[in-house]
């Protein structure tokens, strides 16, 4: 009796362990999966290429005097892993790698696509454990953290000896990647925000299209006229969002998210609160799907399925528009002014190099190439993003003349504000989201929510 009981207990314990190990295994396989995803990631030197390389290398061995006639620089070799998150830019990067391999046939570029939601978690884990990609996309909210965490390779010296010139890129964005006097990346692209709208819905409702000189009141008014009572069409999407939402209206209202010295939150200022309030007012007016509906099905998806007449989106949204069935009935317009003032957030990504990369030379050559003219032109051509190099942005505009894309260039030049960031941006942005979502769901008052943000944000900033 006793023995059996013990046996059962032991068995239970083993099985519990087993289930735990099972967990571990599944964790392991998921890692493996991502590992295999890595190997599956478009191997840019396509199957045919290595053979060709082999052939040429055999030839070269046959008469080694011909070494340089292959047309590229064979002296640098190695693998460069490049992590990024935007699937829409995959083909642009593939083309870049192709061009790059013409110059440096012995450098193998391996693209590692990620999902936005997991990118930063994975990147930080990789940086801590040393398995991080050699080159990876960086953004404004995270650059300070990574630079001060000593993960990135400064490129000042490399820039000196290169043909690249910092002054050929938007100054605000170059400075975004300059931390404590050291340059860590050049901007690869830039983006600003506009209002994308569905012309068909405007036509059906007999509402004239918005123009670049419109105001927030015009927009709210149109949204009301465009909303159908049965919930099949809403005038606008008003989700809780930062870069394509409140950040723009906060600046336009004369407020700030974070003080210039990055020591305190701007959420206790009435102007900042007004920039949030105007969105919540759209929710109250019922001209947008509810905030939770927009969480369950994101605003861009609802817009592209024809449920929203207007959608605030970045210039990067163009790629999705071009991919959609509605591409012929969509256009874009500048953001509306608030009390006569316009503002858009400007942001741009940079390609950073891991400081302990095994192939620093190859990694730099790749980054240098991506900052150069060929890559910027490819970016314009594929419509992936507005290239940051001076003179190449026009290519992006002219590529798709059906849309009012000039508005993004104009706003970047006339009224753009750098993306607000400090060392622990991701943390206080999470507190910001936790509190403001309650205001967007009409559960708490905007003022109350903003003051809670200010308090928690100041706590984070005090520890920086």
């Amino acid at each position: 009796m006793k023995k059996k009981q013990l046996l059962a207990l032991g068995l239970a314990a083993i099985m519990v362990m087993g289930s735990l190990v099972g967990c571990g295994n599944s964790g392991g396989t998921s890692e493996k999966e991502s590992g295999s995803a890595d190997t599956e990631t478009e191997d840019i030197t396509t199957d045919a290429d290595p053979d060709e390389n082999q052939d040429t290398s055999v030839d070269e061995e046959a008469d080694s005097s011909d070494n340089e006639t292959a047309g590229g620089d064979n002296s640098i070799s190695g693998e460069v892993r490049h992590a990024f998150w935007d699937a829409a830019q995959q083909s642009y990067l593939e083309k870049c790698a192709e061009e790059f391999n013409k110059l440096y046939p012995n450098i193998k570029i391996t693209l590692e696509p990620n999902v936005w939601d997991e990118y930063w978690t994975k990147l930080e884990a990789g940086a801590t454990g040393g398995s991080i990609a050699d080159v990876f996309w960086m953004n404004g909210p995270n650059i300070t953290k990574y630079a001060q965490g000593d993960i990135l390779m400064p490129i000042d010296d490399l820039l000196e000896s290169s043909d690249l010139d910092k002054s050929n890129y938007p100054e605000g964005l170059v400075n975004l990647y300059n931390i404590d006097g050291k340059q860590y990346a050049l901007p690869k692209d830039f983006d600003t925000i506009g209002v994308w709208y569905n012309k068909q819905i405007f036509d059906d409702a007999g509402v004239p299209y918005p123009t670049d000189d419109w105001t927030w009141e015009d927009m709210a008014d149109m949204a009301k006229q465009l909303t159908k009572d049965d919930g099949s069409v809403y005038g606008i999407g008003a989700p809780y969002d930062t870069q394509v939402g409140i950040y723009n209206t906060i600046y336009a209202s004369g407020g700030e998210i974070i003080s210039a010295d990055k020591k305190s939150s701007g959420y206790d200022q009435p102007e900042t609160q007004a920039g949030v309030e105007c969105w919540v007012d759209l929710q109250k007016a019922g001209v947008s799907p509810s905030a939770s509906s927009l969480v369950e099905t994101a605003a861009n998806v609802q817009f592209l399925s024809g449920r929203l007449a207007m959608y605030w989106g970045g210039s990067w949204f163009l790629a999705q528009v071009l991919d959609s069935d509605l591409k012929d009935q969509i256009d874009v317009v500048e953001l509306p002014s608030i009390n006569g003032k316009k503002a858009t957030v400007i942001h741009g990504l940079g390609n950073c190099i891991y400081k302990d990369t095994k192939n620093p030379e190859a990694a730099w050559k790749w980054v240098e190439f991506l900052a150069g003219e060929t890559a910027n032109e490819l970016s314009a051509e594929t419509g992936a993003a507005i290239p940051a190099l001076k003179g190449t942005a026009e290519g992006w505009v002219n590529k798709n003349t059906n849309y009012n894309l000039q508005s993004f260039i104009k706003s970047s030049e006339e009224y753009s504000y750098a993306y607000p960031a400090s060392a622990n941006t991701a943390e206080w942005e999470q507190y910001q989201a936790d509190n403001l979502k309650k205001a967007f769901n009409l559960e708490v008052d905007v003022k109350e929510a903003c003051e809670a943000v200010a308090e928690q944000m100041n706590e984070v900033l005090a520890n920086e």
Partner: protein
Amino acid sequence: MNRGKKKSHAKEYAWGYAMIAPLVLGLGVFYFYPVFKVFFDSFHDVGAFNKRKWVGLANYQKMFQDPVMWQSLGNTVKYVLIIVPAVLIISLVLASLLNTGIKGRSFFRVVYFIPAVTMGAAIAMIWRWMYNGDYGILNYILNLLGLESVQFLSNTKTALVSISMVSVWSTTGYNMIILLAGIQGISKSYYEAASIDGANGINQFRHITLPLVTPTLFFVMITTLIGTFQTFDTIYMMINKNSIAMESTQSMVVYFYRNAFEYSKKGYASALAVFLFVIIMVITVFQMKMQNKWVNYE
């Protein structure tokens, strides 16, 4: 003679240890080491890229004053109270039904077991779409019946129950198979004797099957309970971090994850993990003690 025996014993031991080494090493690297590391980290302030600073018991003090922690613990208890009984009852009923001679029972065994061999993430993705407040099939059916749409996953009143249902759905099949094995291990002679005495199916179930399957039931209960306390993937996959229902659905493990990876407070997160570990440990020990009261070992 004696010595030779000892020697051969030593050799046997060596072989035995060699055989279990892979598993023990695996456990050591992936379980025991992290467990100690988490314990160690819980006394530190762990910043970005694992920079540590000793803070003593500060994380624990903060934890017990954190209302969100208590809410997450409360949610976890709710999950346990909903999921564990539901899984036990449904899987036991299914197992006894599938033990009878009904037609197509192998087919049904496979059908019920399929969720167990499906990835949790895939299950959560599919259910998230079925539950979708605007485009989900469940709301489509509700609308056909003339009812209002429900935002299952965004409404703080329905979200937790909706997630629990997915968990029940996906874990029942596995537990059913274990219970089925337990039921089949019961000697046929009991049933024969009972039917001679004129006991019907329900009486047989109550007085033979149920008491004799308790050892298996006990095992299923402990594993389901531990699994439910550690609920993570369904919630993580189904609830967007900006969802209004996040606070009212997040389990301790989700709250741990968010602290570790979204708020970058790994030290505090470690303290949460240690606390959860202690809770599960206490409950499991309690259950082990209680088993004498209701588990029958033949």
